[in-house]
């Protein structure tokens, strides 16, 4: 797993303490506003270099939480500290936003310029980076996200996945310590989704950038270091992917899906097959099934390879 090769530092880069956030609705002119608690008493800590996923159904408060990590929203109660700066401290606002870059859901609504490279340069321009350095940073950031070939293109001509990679490059050009991705793949097709998640994972592994991925696609989080699950404003589960996905029934209660493989393993287990909980990849499932069937594999199994039909027959025999 990625966690073993990566360097994760001890000190927390993001610290959220007993944070709550109310938003107000104004039903009619002159009436008292109605407060709705979007995030309720959430505490979490994220360390430099980690890949953390925040899961939750629609309206679980996960996007609201994400906006706090960039000081776009300020907590009603409790505190949020990013790289040592309290988000309520106005004098460090730009430090926070530079250190905690944010990528949003809709790729069209976050690209500012009509040329890819100019958009990537937008962030560095805002923080007053000298012209020459902007150019090196833009080239580097586009290189890292694999978009360098498109530097002079118009964003309108790119696919959704490519646009999101441009948006990620735009954040990377500001040299942030951590990137917060607020459902970056929600509007993309499966290929675009893969592209974006791959780019993010590379940045985390190679550049050591802390990644906070907010999503409701389970397949994207199985390689995260840690997962937080939110529901109705509360933090309801936390742990490694394996720990989280061991609790299939609990996740179902929270209206969350589990990866397909985990689902299959869970159903088999319920039917009496001796499988452990929390199987995350096809490779693991195949290995476990082989163990039960008493087959030891000699040739290395590649990820994504379909199970051998013979082995499937073995399982069916046992069940009968």
């Amino acid at each position: 797993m990625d966690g073993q090769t990566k360097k994760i530092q001890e000190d927390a880069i993001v610290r959220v303490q007993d944070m709550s956030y109310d938003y107000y609705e104004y039903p009619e002119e002159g009436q008292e506003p109605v407060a709705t608690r979007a995030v309720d008493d959430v505490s979490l800590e994220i360390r430099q270099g980690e890949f953390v996923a925040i899961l939750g159904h629609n309206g679980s408060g996960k996007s609201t939480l994400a906006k706090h990590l960039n000081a776009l929203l300020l907590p009603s109660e409790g505190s949020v500290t990013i790289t040592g700066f309290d988000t309520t401290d106005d004098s460090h606002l730009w430090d926070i936003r530079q250190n905690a870059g944010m990528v949003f859901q809709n790729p069209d609504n976050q690209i500012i310029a009509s040329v890819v490279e100019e958009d990537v340069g937008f962030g560095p321009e805002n923080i007053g980076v000298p012209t020459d350095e902007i150019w090196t940073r833009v080239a580097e950031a586009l290189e890292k996200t694999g978009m360098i070939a498109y530097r002079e293109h118009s964003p309108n001509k790119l696919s959704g996945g490519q646009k999101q990679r441009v948006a990620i490059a735009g954040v990377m050009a500001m040299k942030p310590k951590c990137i917060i991705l607020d459902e970056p793949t929600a509007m993309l097709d499966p290929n675009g989704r893969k592209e974006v998640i791959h780019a993010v994972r590379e940045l985390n592994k190679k550049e050591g950038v802390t990644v906070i991925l907010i999503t409701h696609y389970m397949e994207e989080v199985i390689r995260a270091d840690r997962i937080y699950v939110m529901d109705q404003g509360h933090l309801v589960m936390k742990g490694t992917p394996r720990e989280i996905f061991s609790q299939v029934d609990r996740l179902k209660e929270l209206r969350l899906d589990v990866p397909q493989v985990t689902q299959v393993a869970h159903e088999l287990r319920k039917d009496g097959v001796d499988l452990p909980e929390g199987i995350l990849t096809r490779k693991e499932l195949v290995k476990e099934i082989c163990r039960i069937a008493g087959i030891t594999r000699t040739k290395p199994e590649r990820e994504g390879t379909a199970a051998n039909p013979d082995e499937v027959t073995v399982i069916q025999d046992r069940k009968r």
Partner: protein
Amino acid sequence: MDKDLTIGQYYPADSAIHALDPRTKLIATLIYIISLFIFDNWGYVLGIAFLAAVIIISKVPFSYMLKGLKSIAFILILTMLFNLFLTPGTVLWQAGVFHITREGLKMAIELGIRLVALILGASIMTLTTTPNKLTDGMESLFGPLKVFHVPVHEIAMMMSIALRFIPILMEETDKIKKAQMARGADFESGNLFVRAKAMVPLLVPLFVSAFRRANDLAMAMEARCYHGGEGRTQMKPLHYHGNDVAAFVIICAYLAAAITMHAIAGW
């Protein structure tokens, strides 16, 4: 770069005019327009000769430029007709209430030439400059107005964002239109008023979506540390080069020639 942008009508080519700094082109266009109002009689020959030279250097096909004139043809003809028939003076031709005077004829011809030269001169600028550069150039030229608290940077930023979103909103209009047509909306039949009314179900969702986009974009810009023009550096700052100096010399020589000819020979 911006070939696919519908407004601004940038014509990509590799010419000396394209290579000029946008500020040079803006100032030169202004000088040229002023020169057109100096001339009286023969001066227009000088003005048109100068324009023709610039068009040839710019490598923009003349037929392409004429397309721009089509849209103003109606106004042009109308203005010329008004001047032709309504200017008092020596009557050359009369039929009922209509009469053409010598002064009117001269005025109409002059005005026609002046307007055509003016439009062509200005379109040379938009055809050879990308909208982005034009915005940058304007921001830089109007920079001194900041002293009077004119939000120059903000206006330029708004213009460039508008340019970025035109294709997106066009696509969206198309999508909404098709969606409404699929549900039985009729955009094509009826008189002007009926058709204008039919646009409502198109415009309402478009506006709602545009506001939502604006909101998202504002948040994304803030998240990327945007806080106005203060303390901001530029990725592509504008620099004058040797060719800009040459262009300034040429346009100033042209203006000087125009003034001299007007003063001495009454052109």
